[in-house]
């Protein structure tokens, strides 16, 4: 075990996956020589050489497109898209091909690729570097969407994603890259995809979050006496419905915290599921704390955009005292 922050854990996960399987390759903008703009791929070029760690031309659709071809032809590519705001450039490739290769070939071909990309705000960045649009990937049939919130989970989930045989969009909360450290095994291990984690057990209310909002939600719990059960989804798709429903049936109350805009966000999907499967256990309407339905503002106003501790506590208390 060593203390690692989230970005070091990602780096360690990539290293383990590459050591364990010669078909794993990394590609993207600035991932080689530079070691990635956030240092996720630091040291990999030196260790594994340019054939497996590729500095590519500046072209996201190109990066994901060639990764699809690589995946079908026997490699396990892990493309990095420098910021999720630039993953849109590759959306066509992801949706039209990565997500469909298995279905289109009636199971003959698979597309084992993992697109890693940082997302979330709060890093005083320029436009397009702060968005949280995980829902648009979760909406696409055939894609898996994984979002870790801690170093330990980041490494274990990444290794699982790389070992898996389906395409994964792996979104890393950039705000948390260096925010927390925890003990992480140096060797390879996996954290299962599709399994949520109960971060804290509680009896009065179920609070659900993921990725960038998880730490803050956890901290918000220090400011309320409500006995919260906190769930970290970790995977948005396939979603661990059972853990959510079991918890909501137990507590009878639910609040969801997401950084993304409100309309059509992933919270909406959870509310629909609770409605379908636990409505008669509810003692209060399900509440959600979200970003606004606006374009993410430049940094002078970003603290207003990001769901604040106060907004989280208010929603928890209002729902608990309904």
């Amino acid at each position: 075990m060593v203390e690692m922050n989230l970005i070091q854990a990602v780096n360690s996960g990539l290293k383990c996956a590459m050591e364990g399987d010669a078909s794993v390759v990394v590609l993207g903008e600035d991932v080689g020589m530079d070691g990635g703009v956030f240092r996720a791929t630091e040291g990999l070029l030196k260790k594994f050489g340019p054939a497996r760690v590729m500095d590519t031309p500046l072209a996201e659709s190109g990066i994901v497109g060639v990764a699809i071809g690589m995946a079908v032809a026997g490699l396990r590519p892990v493309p990095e898209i420098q910021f999720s705001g630039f993953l849109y450039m590759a959306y066509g490739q992801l949706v039209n091909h990565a997500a469909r290769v298995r279905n289109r070939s009636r199971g003959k071909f698979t597309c084992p690729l993992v697109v890693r990309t940082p997302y979330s705000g709060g890093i005083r960045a320029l436009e397009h570097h702060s968005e949280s649009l995980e829902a648009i990937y979760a909406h696409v049939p055939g894609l898996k969407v994984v979002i870790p919130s801690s170093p330990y989970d980041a490494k274990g989930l990444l290794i699982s994603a790389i070992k898996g045989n389906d395409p994964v969009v792996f979104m890393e909360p950039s705000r948390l890259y260096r925010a927390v450290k925890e003990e992480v095994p140096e060797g390879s291990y996996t954290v299962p995809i599709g399994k949520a984690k109960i971060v804290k057990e509680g009896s009065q209310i179920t609070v659900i979050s993921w990725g960038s909002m998880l730490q803050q939600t956890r901290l918000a719990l220090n400011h309320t006496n409500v006995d919260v059960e906190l769930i970290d989804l970790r995977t948005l798709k396939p979603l661990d419905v059972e853990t959510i429903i079991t918890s909501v049936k137990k507590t009878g109350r639910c609040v969801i915290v997401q950084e993304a805009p409100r309309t059509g966000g992933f919270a909406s999907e959870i509310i629909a599921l609770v409605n379908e499967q636990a409505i008669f256990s509810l003692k209060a309407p399900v509440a959600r704390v979200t970003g606004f339905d606006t374009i993410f503002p430049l940094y002078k106003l970003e603290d207003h955009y990001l769901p604040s501790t106060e907004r989280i506590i208010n929603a928890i208390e209002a729902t608990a005292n309904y």
Partner: protein
Amino acid sequence: MAEKLLKTFNVRHLQVLDDTGKADSRLMPRLSARQLVELYGLMVLCRRFDEKALSLQRQGRLGTYASVLGQEASQIGAAYALGKADWVFPTYRDASILIVRKQPMVRVLQYFGGDERGSIPAEGVNNFPISIPVGTQGLHAVGAGMAATVQKKKFAALACFGDGATSEGDMNEAFNFAGVFKAPVIFLCQNNQYAISVPVKRQTAAETIAQKAIAFGFEGIQVDGNDVLAVYSATAAALKKAYAGKGPTLIECLTYRIQNHTTSDDASKYRSAAEVELWKKKDPVARMRKFLERKKLWDNRKEAELAAKVERQVSEAVSEYEAVPKPEVDDIFKYQYEELPGFLRRQMDDYKNLVEGK
């Protein structure tokens, strides 16, 4: 049946001023003494602005900033050739283009200071706001050019981009549309040798970027991007061609990014200090000054006056920037749609009530 040579091509490289500031008189653009001095003045102003922005960033008074240092000739030479009615589609790297295009310096600072109001374009010139997604704005420039054709209006569009951008699909689509529609567009590629850490030879196997134009059916030219007169001259020629309905031109400015990619980057990880030193010797501002001195248009006294003047201008812009009140919460919501829809108004009101303690 026979095999024959169908096409060969040449790529021109244009330099007007050599490293020592000596001009090739046959290639001199038609610029008056006043204009030559004005061009130099803009270079000095923009450089001072750039230094100031970097130092503000270091002191935590500005956000991430992308320096122009070393690329002044490429930006200022091109912008200076344009008319007010022409459109410019800049990137985050193009502070000097914006300044020459009358964008108030205070707004450029506001933009990099995380204040959206810095993107409000200057009155009376057609400057599109800065595009961050690399290579995307080339298509907008082509569209603007096509709009000129449709409306039978006399304006052209300048698409600004780097060497890295030429790898993007969008950029290649822009070249292709421009060729097919003979759009009045100038593609200004500032080949500063790097896209963050990636050297240009990893962006393309082609020897020059200029030659890419040939495949799309229009003219490409490489110019010494540290020679403001060469850039001006190539841009002026491309503009004339565009106005005459003769279609697009790709201008590759061969230059160098002296600074880190942005203030979040550390270039020493991927390039040698010796390489940077080599390019510092080709400094575009010093070269233009030497030229003016040779022409007896410049001396130390004038230089001192100019330095004092730009210092004043830049300091004023900084003071103004720091005095601007923080944007209001409403600013997050106000510009999403023509009218604020009910659901958004509610989000705004709820939030304002919360922060105002109601």
